[in-house]
């Protein structure tokens, strides 16, 4: 899973040569061997490295505050989102929905690596949601639909249908 994400990221960044990754441990943490220096271990570490390699530092945030926010969300992705249980899903989505209330992207008004990896991470949860639930977490759905249509992002994941208008408006059914 993580390896596919990294390969999609490479395609998005326009990196010509795809890297060869290996994994370590039962959690299959990705590892990138480098020619000059120690190996890079961890999804977030490797992703940040790739971004720097592709000379797209703005994807990590263009101010100190947004850089911190991006790192925070990348951290959140691998610690809280990956492997969250069924009971946690509601809370995760509720908090995420509240956070996105007044933001276009996770870092505010700028598209960053945080959006990419939160999209990859949350896809499996969104795919399972019924239309009524998608309407319940309106902000998450809005952000998700925006990111999945962002050019070059949605490589290995199937698109999730999002309706233009609300169909659950009334108080019934």
């Amino acid at each position, binding site marked *: 899973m993580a390896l596919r994400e990294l390969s999609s990221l490479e395609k998005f960044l326009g990196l010509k040569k795809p890297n060869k990754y290996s994994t370590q441990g039962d959690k299959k943490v990705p590892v990138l061997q480098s020619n000059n220096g120690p190996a890079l271990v961890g999804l977030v570490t490797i992703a940040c490295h790739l971004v720097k390699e592709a000379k797209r530092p703005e994807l990590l945030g263009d101010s100190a505050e947004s850089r911190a926010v991006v790192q925070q969300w990348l951290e959140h992705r691998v610690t809280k989102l990956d492997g969250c249980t069924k009971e946690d899903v509601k809370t995760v989505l509720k908090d995420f929905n509240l956070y996105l209330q007044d933001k276009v992207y996770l870092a505010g008004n700028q598209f960053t690596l945080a959006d990419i990896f939160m999209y990859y991470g949350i896809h499996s949860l969104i795919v399972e949601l019924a*239309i009524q639930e998608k309407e319940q977490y309106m902000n998450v759905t809005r952000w998700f639909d925006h990111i999945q249509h962002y050019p070059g992002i949605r490589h290995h994941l199937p698109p*999730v249908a999002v*309706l233009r208008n609300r*169909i659950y408006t009334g108080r019934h059914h």
Partner: protein
Amino acid sequence: MTKEGVQGATEEEEQQQAQSKKGLKKQQKEAEKAAKKAEKQAKLAAEQQSTEEDDFAKDRYGVAAMVQSQQKLDRALVRVQDLTPEKADQLIWLRARVHTSRAKGKQCFLVLRQQQFNVQALVAVGDRASKQMVKFAANITKESIVDVEAMVRKVEQKIESCSQQDVELHIERIFVISQSEARLPLQLEDAVRPDGEGEEEGRATVNQDTKLDNRVIDLRTTTSQAIFRLQSGVCQLFRDTLTNKGFVEIQTPKIISAASEGGANVFTVSYFKTSAYLAQSPQLYKQMCICADFDKVFCVGPVFRAEDSNTHRHLTEFVGLDIEMAFNYHYHEVIDSITDTMVQIFKGLRDNFQTEIQTVNKQFPSEPFKFLEPTLRLEYTEALAMLHEAGVEMGDEDDLSTPNEKLLGRLVKEKYDTDFYVLDKYPLAVRPFYTMPDPNNPKYSNSYDMFMRGEEILSGAQRVHDAQLLTERAIHHQIDLEKIKAYIDSFRYGAPPHGGGGIGLERVCMLYLGLHNVRQTSMFPRDPKRLTP
């Protein structure tokens, strides 16, 4: 005397003394009690005497003798719904139920109820009513039927809690015609309380089973009265609209020899030395009437389905409103006729039953029913496309599951703003054997379903009117030809092309009003768990 003896004697004496002390106390207490009792009795007697003495209004109230048609009274009784300011200062008689009665000092406030209407009434100590009369009024049990002579008076402030808000009655005479037992199995106020309000304010509501077990009382509530008046309206509009279109009403047999829709969900009855079945639909007989040249027929009658489904929309016995008609060249003539009938029914309800709709909405709020003219008709393939767009995976020849039907209903509502639509050209594979296949595409059929608020209310189609094709289709569906021989034979002697459909009265009412359980629109519902009342 020995010492013991002396001791014994003193002990005895002591005991005697003790006894007499106890005895004295006991006697004293008894004496007090007796005195009190005597006092009370004397007081009561005095009171009674005084009440009998002072009761100048003795003839103006009481429990009337049971009405055994002893006399023909030439007395006009006014209806509660006619109590308007126009009748102010008139002395009138009426008969109604006591909805509530509340004594407050020298006055007693009553709410008198007649079906959906109620009015405030007042008995006050004065020159017409005595203290004893007010007390009598306050003690009349709820739901008792009373005859009341009263003066109609206009009120300054509107009485919000009653249907007649501009007047109140000042009672001069009140007689109980039929007394109710004091303990009611359910309280009418609780039965009409909206569920939300019940939870918020911690007041009681009545659950459905209790209501159904005590249906006679539950049917007295304003909500129930409104629902069944509206249902009566649906039947009336159905009959009138179709009669105006030239349809003939027919009656079909309900005891039949073979299951019409399939063997699984049919009730068997013992029929002398053999068995028979209760009809699952009038399908076969409607069609035979068409072959008998009645051209356009409809019937209103019970339908029996032995389906062990305990859902919000299934009953084992319900009222079917069925239509069948011969057409000239295309089965859409049938669809148009049916949808026009439905639209006339919706319009008739909207225009003539607003009071009833509002009454039901008070307890069960819902959005008003919306429909388009002409009725929206979608093809099955279009519906599939809409569902695919919403992320639902379905094959071309799959039937719609209930959740998908409901979802489709919402998508249609959002896109076209209608609660009523027709879905045309269902896949042939999921329809009964007597459905006419589509002439151009063998995967589809000339069949249709109609939906209200996303739930199916009618299933219909062009029928196969050719004995040869019918036999082929029956064989394809692995149906025993022997069992349907009479049915197939009816098409051998010239049969016109025809089609039709049937709706369930209870379901249509439930969905029109936006209710959530079909038992609310069935007077004495029958389901796998309920056979009484």
